[in-house]
């Protein structure tokens, strides 16, 4: 009997695992299952180009990650439009929602995460943004114009605000935190994002929670905890994501805001159960702690690692990526690497109110670089990611800053 790997979840982590298995020469069967009936698609464009750019000849701004032809050419069996219902690790089976049972030798759990639901229900005109269907529905409402209230000033909220502003809508951004992105970059650095919204014409309401969102004649009314009322045609709730682990509750796997894994991204104590992407809470060797990361690049790196480990259980590879995420906000390309929130101090290169490009570096208590953010300056991020990922990762903030300062001086006219 041929070896069989069942991959549950056909977003970036699942698709890349299936493809990496084939590229590495895996000779067994590969079955890729997803609840969504759409061909596998990429999510980053859903909050960016998908909203702000017109469709080209009916084509979406997010191309398929895997077409039927590509799946056939790689001998990947696609089972789309059917959710996984439960996992029996001892029996080596996945039960599907349509009653079928898939046997596996190895299984990859890649069901990702879901948008945290709106605490104010789903009145007409209120959106969350996670799936292609969500993005289509939001795009349709944004195209009607009018007033948009975005709840949540994280990456998704900021990108939606940016896209809606570009479409000429009147935009308000609300967040209960006093400073946007404060939990990630700290309040002082976070203020540059507040000014970014304001500079591009968005109204900001930070430090106030949302009391209620209600359907009224002619639209929606968002009531803030300080009593402010905002009228809206469209409301977008971007308040984070939670891992899709409900289907694993009967599996006996250790769940703790994700599936708890060893350093090889295998569920603890279960060498045939592999986890990639948002669902994995794995032991990160360099950080010496369990982490869960919701970034595209993390899923891609884990996919490559997990595919190797399935095909080479005798030579397991630990997964030790450097955190990296990007975000397009107005005219800023924001890139974030490492763990700024662990910083004891930070320094800024350039002035965000004057310069087209700037960067922020964070150091831990020992002075070692632990995080970096760059705006319109990818080279600064590359230098930081190298330093963060280098063996031992002991580059100090000052060493990285000196390198960047020299590069900045060398780049003509900037």
């Amino acid at each position, binding site marked *: 009997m041929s070896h069989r790997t069942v991959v549950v979840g056909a977003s970036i982590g699942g698709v*890349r695992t299936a*493809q*990496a298995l084939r*590229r*590495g020469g895996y000779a067994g069967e590969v079955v890729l299952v997803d609840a969504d009936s759409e061909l596998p698609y*990429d999510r*980053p464009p859903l909050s960016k180009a998908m909203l702000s750019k017109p469709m080209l000849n009916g084509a979406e701004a997010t*191309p398929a990650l895997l077409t039927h032809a590509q799946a056939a050419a790689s001998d990947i069996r696609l089972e789309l439009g059917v959710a996984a219902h439960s996992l029996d690790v001892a029996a080596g089976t996945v039960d599907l929602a349509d009653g079928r049972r898939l046997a596996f030798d190895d299984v990859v759990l890649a069901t990702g995460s879901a948008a945290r639901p709106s605490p104010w229900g789903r009145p007409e005109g209120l959106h969350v943004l996670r799936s292609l269907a969500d993005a289509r529905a939001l795009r349709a409402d944004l195209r009607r114009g009018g007033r948009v209230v975005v709840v949540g000033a994280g990456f998704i909220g900021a990108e939606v605000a940016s896209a809606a502003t570009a479409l000429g809508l009147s935009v308000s951004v609300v967040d209960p935190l006093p400073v946007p992105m404060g939990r990630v970059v700290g309040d002082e650095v976070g203020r540059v994002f507040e000014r970014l919204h304001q500079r591009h014409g968005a109204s900001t309401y930070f430090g106030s929670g949302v009391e209620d969102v209600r359907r009224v004649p002619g639209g929606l009314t968002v009531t803030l905890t300080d009593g402010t009322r905002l009228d809206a045609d469209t409301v977008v709730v971007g308040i984070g994501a939670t891992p899709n682990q409900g289907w694993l509750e009967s599996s006996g796997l250790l769940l703790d805001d994700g599936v708890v894994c060893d350093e090889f991204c295998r569920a603890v104590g279960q060498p045939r159960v592999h986890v990639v992407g948002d669902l994995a809470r794995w032991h990160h060797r360099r950080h010496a702690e369990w982490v869960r990361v919701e970034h*595209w*690049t993390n899923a*891609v*790196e884990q996919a*490559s690692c997990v595919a190797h480990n399935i095909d080479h259980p005798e030579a397991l590879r630990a997964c030790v990526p*450097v955190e*990296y995420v*990007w975000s397009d906000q107005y005219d800023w*390309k924001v*890139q974030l690497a490492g763990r700024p929130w662990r910083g004891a101090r930070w320094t800024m290169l350039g002035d965000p109110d004057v310069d087209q490009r700037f960067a922020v570096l964070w150091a831990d208590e020992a002075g070692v670089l632990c995080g970096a953010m760059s705006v*319109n*300056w*990818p*080279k600064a*991020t*590359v230098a930081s*990611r*190298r330093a963060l*990922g280098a063996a031992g990762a002991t580059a100090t903030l000052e060493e990285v800053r000196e390198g960047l300062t020299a590069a900045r001086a060398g*780049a003509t006219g*900037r």
Partner: protein
Amino acid sequence: MPTVKADHEACQGYANCVIAADDVFDIDDDGVVVLLRDEVAEEDRGRVADAANSCPVSALRLDDA
């Protein structure tokens, strides 16, 4: 010998390729990919293919020449 192709218009400067294979890829001051060489030795195929596949906007291809 496998050949690397880059779509400079599509490139957004995410630079995952540079992190994965800095002997083949770099970026310039404007954040656009620079190919340090376009031919890749057979034994580097897997590593460079991984680097090309790490591009979030699929701006890189590894072709069989």
